[in-house]
C-alpha cells in the first residue's frame, strides 16, 4: 500500500465504461444536444433488482468528454425507459416513458444540475397507438424516437403524432424551463389525416408545417405553415403554401440575414404528390406574421441540370433522385444543401415472389436503392454554384407489393420516416458558421478492412475534406453517436459481460 503525502491524480480519458448492467440491450442512451451541438450524454440502465416488478435504475449524465456530471439512482417499474433528451443552452429535459402506466414524464434539470420541474401527462389512446405502431413496434435499440426540440434558454417543444385506425393527427406541447408553464396545440380544422412537422422556433414564433388530407387516399393534401405564439400557444397565422406551384416545405433554417427560410420540393399547381414527379426545390423566406418575403424555385432540368446530369424528372444518372436532409449557410454567405440519392430498381426477390405466387406476392417487383451523398452549393440568393457527389455503398430496401406505383419523391419520405434506411446521420455547424460536418454511415469491403464505417464531409474556411473511421468491433452491438463537431462517440455493448464501453474519436 502506498502512503502518500497528498492524493494522486485521477486517470484522464475520453471514455465511458459501465458495468453490471442488468439488461444491456434495454439500456437507454443518447446525445444531449442543443440544436446540432452535442453538450453531453445520458445513460440509463437497470443496476439492481428491487423486487419482482421494480428495478433500481441509474441515470448518468456526462459532459461531452464523457466526464460524469450527475448520477442518480431511482427505483421504478421495470417498464420505464427514456425516449429522448434535449438541452436548450441552460436546461436539460429527459422524456421518461412508463410502458405499463402509459405515461410520459418530462424531467427538467437546471444549469445547477438540480431537478427543476416535472411535467407529467397521460397519453391519449391515439398517441398510444402511434407509439405502439412506430417506436415501440421497432426494436427500441434503434433509438429512432425524435420529438423534442430545444427553444434556446426558454423551454422545449414536443411534437407528437398520434393515430387511431385511419385517423392521424398530432399534438405540439411547449414546456417552459423559465417557470412552470405548459401549453398544448392540436389542429382543430376538419380532416381525416394530419401530419404536423415542427420546423423551428424563430423570433417567438413556433413554425409548423401541416398537411391536411381529405381522405386516406388523398394525393393532394393541403399544405400550410402554422405559426404559434411561443408564450401562449395561440395560433398567430396559417399560411397556405400553394401559390404558382404546390410547395411542400420540409425543413426550416435561419440564415445569416437573420431571416427564416423554409424549403422543400415543389410540384405543378394541382399536382399529386403520391404520383407526380416534383419539379425541383423551393426556398421561401418567411417572417413572424406568416408573410412570404421571398420565393425561389430551382427546377431539376434548368438550374440543377447545369451542374449535374439531371433529367427533367429530377433523376441524376446513377444517383437517382435526391432527398434533401439539411441546409446550412456558412459565414461567407454560401448555402449548402446536403442530400442523398435513391432510386427504384427491379427486385429479384419481388419478381420471384410475384412469379411464385401468381402475382399475389407481398414483395414488390421494384425495390429502392439508396445511393450516394450530394452536396449542392448555392449563393446567398439560392443560385446553384456547384454540386458534388460522394460515392458510398448502396442499400437495398424491398418494398411491399403495390408500392411500385407510388411516386419516387414520396418514396424518399418513406425511406426516411418508415424504413429509416438513409445512411445520412447528422450535420453539425460551429458557432460562427465557418465550418460544418456532414456525417453518414457506409460499409466497406476492402482488403484490409471489411465492415461498417462512419464518414464525414467537412467544410472549413472554404475547403472541403472527407474522412472515415472504421466502426467494426467485437461487441454484441455497436453504435455511433454524435459528439462535439468533428467527433463521434463509439459505443459498444457487450451483452454477456453486461457492460458498455464507449470512447470519443475525431473525424477530420
Amino acid at each position: 500500500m502506498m502512503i502518500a503525502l497528498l492524493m494522486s491524480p485521477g486517470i484522464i480519458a475520453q471514455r465511458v465504461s459501465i458495468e453490471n448492467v442488468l439488461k444491456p440491450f434495454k439500456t437507454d442512451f443518447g446525445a444531449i444536444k442543443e440544436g446540432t451541438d452535442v453538450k453531453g450524454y445520458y445513460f440509463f440502465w437497470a443496476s439492481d433488482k428491487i423486487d419482482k416488478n421494480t428495478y433500481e435504475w441509474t441515470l448518468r449524465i456526462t459532459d461531452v468528454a464523457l466526464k460524469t456530471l450527475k448520477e442518480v439512482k431511482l427505483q421504478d417499474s421495470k417498464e420505464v425507459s427514456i425516449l429522448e433528451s434535449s438541452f436548450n443552452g441552460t436546461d436539460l429535459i429527459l422524456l421518461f416513458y412508463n410502458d405499463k402506466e402509459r405515461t410520459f414524464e418530462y424531467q427538467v434539470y437546471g444549469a445547477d444540475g438540480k431537478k427543476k420541474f416535472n411535467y407529467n401527462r397521460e397519453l391519449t389512446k391515439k398517441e398510444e397507438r402511434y407509439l405502439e405502431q412506430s417506436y415501440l413496434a421497432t426494436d427500441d435499440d434503434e433509438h429512432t424516437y425524435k420529438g423534442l426540440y430545444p427553444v434556446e434558454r426558454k423551454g422545449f417543444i414536443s411534437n407528437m403524432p398520434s393515430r387511431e385506425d385511419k385517423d392521424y393527427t398530432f399534438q405540439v406541447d411547449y414546456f417552459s424551463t423559465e417557470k412552470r408553464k405548459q401549453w398544448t396545440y392540436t389542429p382543430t380544422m376538419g380532416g381525416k389525416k394530419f401530419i404536423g412537422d415542427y420546423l423551428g422556433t424563430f423570433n417567438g414564433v413556433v413554425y409548423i408545417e401541416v398537411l391536411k388530407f381529405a381522405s386516406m387516399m388523398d394525393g393532394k393534401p393541403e399544405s400550410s405553415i402554422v405559426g404559434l405564439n411561443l408564450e401562449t400557444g395561440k395560433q398567430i397565422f396559417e399560411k397556405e403554401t400553394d401559390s404558382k406551384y404546390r410547395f411542400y416545405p420540409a425543413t426550416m433554417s435561419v440564415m445569416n440575414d437573420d431571416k427564416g427560410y423554409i424549403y422543400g420540393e415543389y410540384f405543378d399547381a394541382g399536382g399529386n404528390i403520391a404520383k407526380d414527379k416534383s419539379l425541383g426545390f423551393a426556398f421561401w423566406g418567411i417572417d413572424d406574421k406568416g408573410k412570404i418575403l421571398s420565393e425561389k424555385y430551382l427546377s431539376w432540368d434548368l438550374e440543377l441540370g447545369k451542374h449535374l446530369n439531371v433529367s427533367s424528372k429530377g433523376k441524376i444518372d446513377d444517383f437517382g433522385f435526391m432527398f434533401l436532409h439539411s441546409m446550412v449557410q456558412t459565414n461567407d454567405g454560401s448555402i449548402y444543401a446536403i442530400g442523398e440519392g435513391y432510386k427504384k430498381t427491379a427486385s429479384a426477390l419481388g419478381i420471384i415472389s410475384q412469379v411464385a405466387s401468381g402475382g399475389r406476392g407481398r414483395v414488390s417487383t421494384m425495390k429502392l436503392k439508396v445511393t450516394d451523398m450530394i452536396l449542392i452549393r448555392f449563393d446567398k440568393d439560392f443560385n446553384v454554384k456547384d454540386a458534388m457527389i460522394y460515392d458510398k455503398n448502396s442499400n437495398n430496401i424491398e418494398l411491399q407489393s403495390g408500392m411500385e406505383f407510388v411516386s419516387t419523391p414520396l418514396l424518399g419520405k418513406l425511406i426516411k420516416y418508415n424504413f429509416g434506411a438513409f445512411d445520412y446521420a447528422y450535420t453539425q455547424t460551429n458557432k460562427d458558421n465557418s465550418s460544418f460536418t456532414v456525417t453518414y454511415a457506409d460499409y466497406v469491403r476492402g482488403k484490409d478492412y471489411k465492415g461498417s464505417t462512419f464518414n464525414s464531409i467537412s467544410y472549413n474556411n472554404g475547403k472541403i475534406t472527407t474522412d472515415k473511421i472504421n466502426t467494426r468491433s467485437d461487441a454484441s452491438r455497436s453504435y455511433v453517436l454524435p459528439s462535439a463537431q468533428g467527433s463521434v462517440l463509439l459505443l459498444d455493448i457487450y451483452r454477456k459481460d453486461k457492460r458498455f464501453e464507449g470512447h470519443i474519436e475525431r473525424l477530420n
Partner: protein
Amino acid sequence: MKKSLLFFLFIIPGIYGIAQLKPVYAFQQDDTVLKKKYYEEALQQKKFLLSSLGKEYKDDYKEIYENRFEEVADLLKSSRAVTSPEAHGYLQSLLKRIVAANGELNQLPVRLVFSRDWWPNAYSMGEGTLVVNAGLMIFLDNEAELVFVICHELAHYYLNHSDNAIKKNVERVNSEEFKKEITRLSREEYRVRQQVEDLLKKMTFDTRRHSRENEAEADRQAFRFMKRTGFDCQAIKTCLQRLDKVDDSLLFKPLDLEQVFNSPGYAFRKRWIEKESVLFGEMTEDDSPLTKKERDSLKTHPDCVKRIAWLEDSLAQSGEGKKFMINEELFKGLKKEFVPEMAEQEYRDKDLGRNLYYSLAMLQQQQNIPLAVYTVARDLNIAYESQKDHRLGDWFAAERRGLPPDYNLLLRLLKRLRLEEIATLNYNFCKRYEARMTGYAGFEKEMEKARKKLTD
C-alpha cells in the same frame, strides 16, 4: 469477490506506460548502476518477505506484495526515477542529516529518490522506497520544507503504516463475519448492488479513517524527526499551507494562447477558445450523491488546515531552525531544472497536453526557450498525425472541470482545431522562431514536417 475486494482496497493509482519515442531533449544523466542496485534490493526484499510468509492468507499477502513490487519496479526501470548524481546526491545529503539526528532510523533500509512525475506528491511504498515527485519539489520554498516532506514519508515507513494496513485488511476480508456476508449476498436476488456497495462503503470508510489517523501520526512523528535536525520546523506549517493551495498558477502566469500562437502569417482565431454553453454550467464542483459526512469519510488525508492546527502547539515550542543547511543554490537550481524534466517525462508518458502546456508556459516566461519552441513544434506535429489517425484522445486529455482554466483553454483549442489549422498554426509558429532556433537539434526537422503538412 474477495480478490476484487483486496484489489479495491489496495489499488495504487495507475502509472502510464512508457512510449516508444525518440526525444531530442536529454534528461539529466541518471546513474543506471544505482537504479539497478535499488531494483535488486527491492527484489531481494520482496523475495525475503514472500519466503517468510506464514500459511495464513499466504496467497493474499503474496498478491499484494507482488503488486507492490511491480509498482516499485516500474518506477526504477523507467525514466521516472531521478538518479542523476547531483539531484540524487543532494537528496541523500538531506536524508543523511535526518538519519544522523535520529538514531532510530539507522537500521531502516531506505531508497529515497526524486521522480519526474508532475503531480505534487510524495509517497512511501511501505518497503523502503520513498519518492518525492518533481511536481512537488518545484512548489517548495526551501530545504526545510523538503526535509519535512522526507520526514513525513520516513515516519510512515518507521511506523510501519503500510504493512499494518495490509495486515488489517487481509484479516478483515478473511474473517468469518465477512465471508458469511459474501455468501449471503451471493444468494440474494434483490438489492444486491446496494448491499455490496454498503459493505464496500463501510470498509472504505474504515480504511480511510485509519489512513487519516496515520497521516496525523506521521505528521507528529515527522515533527519529532525534524526538530532534531536543526532545520526550521515552521517549514511544516508553510509547506502544508502551500500544499493546500497548490496550483500551476503559483509557478507560471496563466497562459495567453493568443499571445503565444498569434503570428504575422496566421492570426489567432478567437473562436478556437470561445466559451460555449455547457451542460449544468452552474453546477457546484461537488454534486456527489454522498452526504458531507460521507464525503469527509472518504478522504485519505485530513485537510491541511486541520493538520496545521494539530501541530500548532508543538510548532510554537520548536525553537529556531534554519531554512537551508545543505545547499541553497542547488535546491533552487533543481527546482528550475525539474520543470523541463517533468515536462519531458509527460511526453514520454504520452500526456502531450501537459507537455505542451508546460512548454508554452516556459516559452511565455522566457525560460528554456529553444527547448520550449522545439517541443511545441514537435507536439503540434504529433497532434496533426494523431488527429489524422483519429487518435488525438490518446495523446491529449479533454477539457474538464477541476483542471486549471488556462490548461482547459489549451485542451479546448486542440479539440477545435481542424487538421489543416493545426498544420498552418504550427508552421507559422515555427517561422516565428526560425532564426532563433538555427542549429537546435531536431527543430528544423519538425519545421519541415509542419511545412509538408500544409500541402498534405
